[in-house]
């Protein structure tokens, strides 16, 4: 488990084929997969998962970005989160 530093943020790219939901820094990303709801915070281990239907919440520090997904894929690598939704 990597040590969590408050100054470190995630770099998030959240997109659908024809829509950019969010691109930029974020404090956390919350979504749902087959196991259940989960949160991605800075320092999270590398992660690759298939998303289940539900809401995705990206905490940006000011206004959280929320959108619904019917399907999708989320990957985390070195604090870079890529979320591909509604394919």
């Amino acid at each position, binding site marked *: 488990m990597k040590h969590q530093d408050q100054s470190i943020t995630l770099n998030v790219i959240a997109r659908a084929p024809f829509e950019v939901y969010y691109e930029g820094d974020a404090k956390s990303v919350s979504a749902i997969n087959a*196991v259940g709801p989960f949160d991605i915070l800075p320092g999270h*281990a590398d992660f*690759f998962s298939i998303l289940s239907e539900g809401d995705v919440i990206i905490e940006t520090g000011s206004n959280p970005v929320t959108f619904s997904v019917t399907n999708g894929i989320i990957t985390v*690598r070195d604090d870079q989160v*890529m979320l591909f939704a509604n*394919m």
Partner: protein
Amino acid sequence: MRRASAIEKETEQIVTVEGLTNVFESIASTQVARVKNKVELSKEFFQLLWQRYTSLRVDPGARITSRNADSERTKTAFIVISAEAGLSGDIDLRLIENMLQSYDPKTTDVIVLGSHGAQQLQQRSVPYTHFFKVPETDSYIDVSPVIEGIKSYAKVVVYYEEYVSLGVQDIKTIDLISTIREMSEDADEDVMTAEDTIFEPSLDEIAEQMEETMMMMALSQTILESGLAQAASRFNAMALAKKRASEMISDYRLEFHRAKRSESDRRLREVMVSLKGKRKRQGVRR
């Protein structure tokens, strides 16, 4: 020389055609602008997804393209993505001709998307195993029935139309299975393995779903790209038809004025002749 009234009637018809081509040209232009933006967004999305997909490594034996082994596994499928309607210039014709250069009825099955392509194939007596309608939409369509239909083939080649610019549209081919497989194997992206990455569900399950997703995305992308190329081709065809109609209107108007003058000259000649005759008859009486 034809009568001026007949020329005038034909000119009116061509003016109507010119007006219609103008409307179709405007519609195509709007469609190009709208779809182009979506194609660009979708391309970026696909590239990002590809980048992640290529970081996965799985046993090739477990691949989607290695399953469903049956007698058809030696055959090749050609997927032809054409327009749903006509009025898109010669692009579908070029597409079919391009496909036919590699077509061998003994080893190849043709799957056609779009009524215009199906019509072109029927005219050439080329049979196709499946036909799918392409809705007039600038969104992704559900390609799962197509993907389901191609799983049993050893090779799947997609023939589609690519938008290069408003004036240029090319015919492209992509070997769907090989491209998905080879790009995954030759990728520069660092490999994500079960040793350093958490996979939920398992790596194999994710890889299997990703492969199907990537094939669907690649096919959807080519359909969207074809739609853009068809709209651009339609725009060019309509612009050309409008130019031709304008030229014809000028020619017809010239011919109309000549016919008018000729008719007026003829009437004048007739009046002169009749006047001369009248004078002659009067002179005889005197």
